[in-house]
């Protein structure tokens, strides 16, 4: 069990001399708490698997250091790092029984037989694998196989962290949910640092207490699921998380006012004068924009269509060239295609070159 520090860590598959923009992982520094449940979230190719493989030691970084509890483990091989990893496709040793599979990491480390047996039993109980201990591992279902892969990591009492690389890809939908709750339960029980890579926001948001969102080789935000929703630090986080994603529209901002299409929207914070060279946008989640009957004080929009998501309805609207998603309040009926938009000023954020600008209250 350990705290993990990444110090100025970067990696390029083309070597250290490659152009900075081509790095699969651009330099980052961050701290992973001991006992935290983290999710690494991002689209494919964003560098999340690279980051995971750097932590596990499968890939050696081009630059920077990784510390486990303050000790530099960058040069250490995967074996010596005491991490466990569960891969996208279940990895099991075909010729062995479930029990032998679980015992394998301990046997390799020369642990006495009595200790191995005790530990295997303990972990099998934890993962509900006890009835299968004597069975050949190849005959089991994919979710049982994933549990075995996980179990092989957990049998070692010294694991610093458990890494998951999209572990639910091959699991049937109804079992996905079960296995995910099992992971959560294990996390509470064992007080392990867990890092979970996924491109599925539901998986990330339900599993983790800290979600690390990656985009184009960079960590763009690392915070609680609620904060990702309420206050995205980057426009990418805004539209990647949430369904539909955040509305991002170009605007002119000065002081406590944002201007779209000549129309003024009030802001809760004071942004002073923003640099003129930056691309200024405002972002607001569809949940915080309501459609209303057209009125003189409201930004007027053209409704293109209404999506009924069951509990909630969203309208797809157009303001000038900008497209918007906005909530349709319950019971509201649209007279024609034009509507006014009501913004909740507390949830309108300002972005300069895609990055959140903190105004003054």
């Amino acid at each position, binding site marked *: 069990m350990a705290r993990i520090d990444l110090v100025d860590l970067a990696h390029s598959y083309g070597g250290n001399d490659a152009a900075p923009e081509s790095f699969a992982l651009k330099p980052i520094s961050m701290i992973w708490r001991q006992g935290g449940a983290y999710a690494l979230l991002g689209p494919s190719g964003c560098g999340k698997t690279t980051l995971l493989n750097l932590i*596990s*030691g*499968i890939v050696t970084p081009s630059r920077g250091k990784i510390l486990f509890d303050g000790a530099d483990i960058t040069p250490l*091989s*995967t*074996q010596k790092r005491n*991490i*466990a*990893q569960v*891969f*996208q*496709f279940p*990895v099991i*040793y*075909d*010729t*062995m029984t479930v029990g032998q599979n679980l015992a*394998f*990491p301990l046997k*390799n*480390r020369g642990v006495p037989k009595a200790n191995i047996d005790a530990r295997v039993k303990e972990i099998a109980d934890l993962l509900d694998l006890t009835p299968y201990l004597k069975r050949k591992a*190849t*005959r*089991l*279902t*994919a979710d049982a*196989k994933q549990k075995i*892969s996980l179990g*092989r*990591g957990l049998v070692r009492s010294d694991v610093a962290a458990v890494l998951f690389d999209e572990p639910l890809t*091959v699991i049937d939908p109804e079992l996905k949910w079960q296995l995910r709750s099992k992971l959560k339960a294990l996390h509470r029980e064992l007080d392990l640092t867990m890092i979970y890579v996924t491109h599925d926001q539901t998986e990330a948001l339900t599993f983790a207490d800290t979600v690390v969102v990656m985009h184009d080789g960079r960590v763009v935000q690392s915070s609680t699921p609620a904060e990702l929703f309420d206050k995205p630090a980057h426009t990418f986080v805004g539209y990647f998380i949430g369904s539909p994603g955040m509305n991002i529209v170009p605007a002119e901002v000065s002081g406590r006012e944002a201007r779209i299409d000549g129309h003024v929207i009030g802001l809760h914070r004071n942004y002073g004068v923003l640099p003129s060279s930056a691309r200024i946008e405002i972002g607001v989640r569809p949940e915080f924009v309501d459609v209303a009957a057209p009125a003189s004080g409201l930004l007027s929009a053209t409704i293109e269509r209404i999506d009924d998501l069951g509990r909630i309805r969203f309208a797809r609207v157009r303001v000038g060239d900008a497209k918007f998603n906005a909530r349709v309040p319950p019971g509201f009926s649209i007279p024609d295609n034009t509507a006014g938009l009501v913004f909740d000023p507390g949830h309108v954020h300002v972005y300069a070159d895609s990055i959140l600008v903190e105004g003054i209250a």
Partner: protein
Amino acid sequence: MDKTVNQKAWFLVLPVFLVVAFSAILPLMTVVNYSMQDTFGNNQFFWNGVGWFKELLDPSTDLGGRFLASLGRNLFFSAVILAIEVPLGIVVALSMPREGWSVAACLVILALPLLIPWNVVGTIWQIFGRPDIGLLGYTLNSLGINYNYVSNDFDAWATVIVMDVWHWTSLVALLCYAGLKSIPDAYYQAAQIDGASRWAVFTAIQLPKMNRVLLIAVLLRFMDSFMIYTEPFVVTGGGPGNSTTFVSIELVKIALGQFDLGKAAALSLVYNLIILIVCWIFYTVMTNAGADRAAKQGAA
């Protein structure tokens, strides 16, 4: 993947059945017919019943002695080349480069001996091993090793074995390489995390993933070495004496050399029977392994 029962599928396999039956059953019937007769030439045949078979299995007769001796030599030969080629093939497959142009280059060179006509393989080694004009024979003799595959039994055996290793190890290596290529990287990474030694990786991952292709390799190598004819025939002609006369060479000698059709036919049948039995054992093991795999996929 449950197959549907459909007797019309026989129409699909009928052409294959006819072609192979024409080539296999008709000739085999001739063989059975001959095997029970004796001939004194001039196409005159006499009924001999199971006489040839009795003689064949009795080492005190000329025929039996020759057959059993060649059978013993052949089994020994097959055992030796399996013992060399299977481990060597695995080692070569494990030594293959991982990527780049060198992979294609290695594969091409490996496959090369497999596409050389068998008599040319014999010719190559005949030339290569001769003490007067061959690089190998000349070098060995100038190193003070008295090597001559024409006159020395041991040298003849060594030449035939090295030649077979040269000719066929690639087949084992290529099969194993194909098996190794199918292992996803995650297996190696997981093994690394589990702290597996190089040897444990081999026994826990690579060998199990190769077992299917290895079975094919062993089957093909056993069968082909058990039927070997052309290469030793060209190099040693079965000699010196009869020291490298394998079953096929003996059979051709009797059949086409002496036109002793009855004896040859009886020998053919026994020979075929041995092969059929070995084949059956392998087939059973292999289909069981296949069923195992199917069960696995069904579960996954």
